[in-house]
């Protein structure tokens, strides 16, 4: 058992330098979060993967003070991460989400989040998050610094009653205070006073695998109904562990059991419904789930079910010792793992369970007397010879690989509901939750490559007079170095596509033309001059679009449209956007007007080209050199890597020939 005493070095200037771990798969949000947190003078570490976050946290439990995590992440559900962090490291966790549904927030609370923030997150909200760290420290201190366990019958009964109670540690403390003798309280408080609260961090009890195993063994031995902290503590016989530590851990544990029982209930229901499961399963499911958990009414039923599960898992444990590290952790870990399953919805939950049942069910019917969940978990683990999926610190955390092979094997097992299979692996294994999206996404990707329709999006021109030209140009364009631009082109191309759709029978949606056209019309502003251009634009657009992507350089002055080079220039720059060649008109005498025109033109056309550089061509000669310099610097600044000379040359050329 590890009781770590950490001398905090930042308490004097707290919350400055508070160490926050930020987890979010969205890079935009992550960067924003990091910047905001840095502005609040916290010490920020970021990662986009929950698995990495867990690894970091496990490496050194005292490396962070607070964790902020997104709810929706591909590799692991945010709530699952939340639970794990709460259970293993007992750090305050703040959830973050774009979705503020009451249900979701409630789930966050149930899983133990100390706060729930909505995106976009504002700096004001982040400035106060340090309170959660302090609050937890204070409660933990009270929790752990108790001088020892006193036999308080009413406390025990309150704990038993507290089964159905999702009280936080703090509340439990309050209850304790209410029911305790005063002397106990006073002793604790004296203990507090004597300590130097402000400069010393409390010794934090870390529930390691070893410790938890003892805990579970003790609870098993006592029986879940009779498991009271004092007795558990005696059985565990661990130094420096107080009754309060055990009590709070027990509370958490019971929470998990309850959650598992909910899952088991659903599972059993569905198992019965589907009837494709081994009869033993069904029976077990019925016993475990339907009968007792159906309404989750009354602590007794829960006790029974949990107890039974416990007993069985105990049996399981003995039977399956070679299964690897942390087997003893199986029951609880199985429990823990399963609890987040609920997050994914009831229907899929049961189906997932079912899937996982099917596979192990074929093998060991008798072992199924135990907790089905832990069993299947064991089965899977057995196959993998992997330790428990990162549930406890000592367990190997590199379980992503086994997970993927597990999901692979699940799929190979040929279960009928293949989409659910992925979900199964998702639910069963902690880190396995990464697999479904991965698999799915990779499937998509694979299908994408060969998918003919994809070209509709990728096509840069809607004009299909010569589709081979299009494909050719597409290839050219795609060869260019700017993935972003290319992608933008893909997306943007839909606009011209649609623009021409009515005429050209384009394969893409025909609804969009109305959208783009409307938007074009809507943007009027002071574009009176452009009005005339627009009317003439259609044919011009068509032509330009076609020409643009066929061969930019060859467009040159075919129709005396010198500024057709503009589009080519643009295209060279990787914008792949159509420029209304009418911009040739935009060489008014007044340079100021150019600027006015510039962005608005682009806007009016509804295309996405930004060609401020062309502004250079509109500037009369005396500033020409300055503009060159500025443009060159701009180019470099943006690091587009385009051939600067060529571009600029075009601009100049077009300017001079047009004027």
């Amino acid at each position, binding site marked *: 058992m590890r009781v770590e005493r950490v001398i905090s070095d930042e308490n004097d200037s707290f919350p400055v330098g508070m160490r926050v771990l930020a987890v979010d798969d969205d890079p935009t949000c992550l960067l924003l979060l990091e*910047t905001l947190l840095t502005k609040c003078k916290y010490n920020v570490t970021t990662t986009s993967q929950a698995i990495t976050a867990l690894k970091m946290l496990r490496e050194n439990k005292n490396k962070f003070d607070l964790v902020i995590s997104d709810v929706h992440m591909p590799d692991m559900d945010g709530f699952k991460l939340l639970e794990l962090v709460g259970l293993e490291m007992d750090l305050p966790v703040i959830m973050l989400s774009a979705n503020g549904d009451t249900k979701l927030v409630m789930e966050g609370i149930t899983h133990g989040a100390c706060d729930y923030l909505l995106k976009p997150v504002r700096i004001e909200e982040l400035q106060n998050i340090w309170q959660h760290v302090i609050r937890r420290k204070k409660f933990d201190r009270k929790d752990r610094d108790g001088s020892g366990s006193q036999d308080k019958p009413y406390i025990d009964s309150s704990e038993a009653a507290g089964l159905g109670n999702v009280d936080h540690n703090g509340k439990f403390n309050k209850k304790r205070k209410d029911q305790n003798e005063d002397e106990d309280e006073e002793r604790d408080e004296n203990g507090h006073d004597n300590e130097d609260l402000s400069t010393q961090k409390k010794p934090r009890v870390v529930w390691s695998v070893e410790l938890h195993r003892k805990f579970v063994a003790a609870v098993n031995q006592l029986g879940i109904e009779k498991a009271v902290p004092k007795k558990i503590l005696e059985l565990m016989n661990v130094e420096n562990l107080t009754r309060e530590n055990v009590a709070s851990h027990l509370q958490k544990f019971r929470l998990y059991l309850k959650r598992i029982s909910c899952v088991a209930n659903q599972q059993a229901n569905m198992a019965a419904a589907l009837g494709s499961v081994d009869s033993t399963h069904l029976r077990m499911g019925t016993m475990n789930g339907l009968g007792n958990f159906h309404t989750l009414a009354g602590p007794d039923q829960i006790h029974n079910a949990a107890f039974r599960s416990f007993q069985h898992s105990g049996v399981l444990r003995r039977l399956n010792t070679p299964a690897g590290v942390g087997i003893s952790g199986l029951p609880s870990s199985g429990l823990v793992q399963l609890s987040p399953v609920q997050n994914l919805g009831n229907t899929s939950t049961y189906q997932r369970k079912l899937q996982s049942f099917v596979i192990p069910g074929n093998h060991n019917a008798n072992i199924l007397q135990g907790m089905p969940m832990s069993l299947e978990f064991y089965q899977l683990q057995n196959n993998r010879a992997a330790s428990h999926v990162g549930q406890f610190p000592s367990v190997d955390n590199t379980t992503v690989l086994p997970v993927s092979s597990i999901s692979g094997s699940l799929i190979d097992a040929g279960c009928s509901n293949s989409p659910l299979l992925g979900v199964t692996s998702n639910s069963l294994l902690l880190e396995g939750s990464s697999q479904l999206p991965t698999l799915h996404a990779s499937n998509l990707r694979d299908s994408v490559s060969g998918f003919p329709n994809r070209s509709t999006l990728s096509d840069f021109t809607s004009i299909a007079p010569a589709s081979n030209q299009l494909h050719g140009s597409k290839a050219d364009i795609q060869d260019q170095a700017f993935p972003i631009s290319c992608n933008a082109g893909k*997306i943007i191309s839909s606009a011209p596509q649609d623009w021409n759709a009515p005429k050209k029978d384009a394969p893409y949606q025909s609804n969009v033309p109305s959208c783009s056209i409307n938007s074009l019309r809507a943007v009027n502003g002071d574009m009176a001059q452009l009005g005339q251009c627009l009317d003439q634009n259609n044919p011009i657009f068509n032509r330009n679009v076609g020409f643009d992507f066929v061969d930019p350089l060859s467009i040159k002055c075919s129709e005396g449209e010198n500024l057709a080079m503009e589009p080519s220039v643009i295209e060279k720059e990787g914008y792949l956007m159509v420029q209304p060649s009418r911009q040739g008109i935009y060489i008014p005498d007044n340079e100021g007007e150019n600027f006015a025109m510039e*962005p608005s033109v682009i806007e009016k056309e509804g295309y996405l080209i930004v060609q401020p550089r062309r502004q250079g061509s509109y500037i009369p000669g005396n500033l020409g050199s300055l503009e060159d310099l*500025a443009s060159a610097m*701009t180019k470099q600044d943006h690091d587009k890597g385009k051939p600067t000379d060529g571009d600029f040359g075009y601009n100049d050329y077009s300017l001079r020939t047009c004027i």
Partner: protein
Amino acid sequence: MDFVNQLQRKFIDYSSSLHREGIVDDQFTQLRKLEDENSPHFVMEVASLFFEDCEKLINNMAIALEQKQGVDFKQIDECIHQLKGSSSSIGALRVKNACIAFRSFSDGQNREGCLRCLQQLSHEYSLLKNKLQTLFRVSVASRCLYVCLVIFCRGNEHAEPFPDVLVFQLEKQIVAAGGSIPRVH
């Protein structure tokens, strides 16, 4: 100098027009405020990340909607959710609203509606990207211009005096317009 003034004015006008048209909202202003000497290109960085992300998500959704054997609305839902999160973080108001509208179609598993929404979303995104890029360029251009002018002034002691007063004015204008002054020494 007049040219530079106009540049600044355009920048301010353009920036306010973005807000007026609802293309960006207050969150974007907050983002701009976060930019300082420690993170001089913060807004551009965030915007670039957002563009990448958005394109990827839009493409994924398009692909998902094209699936002949059945559209995975759950995946689309996830994409929308993520896009909504990132667009609201950057302050892209219209994109975010498009996402919200999209969501209702995706919840209703309405493929046609989704396709329409995707188009709309794609359009909004394009618009945003265009505008932001213009904004960035003007902002960068003004910075570069300032640098050039400074160089010009410094290296031009013999020429007709280019009053340092003007340089300071220019600096103020640039800052007022929301740009930042690179420290040139």
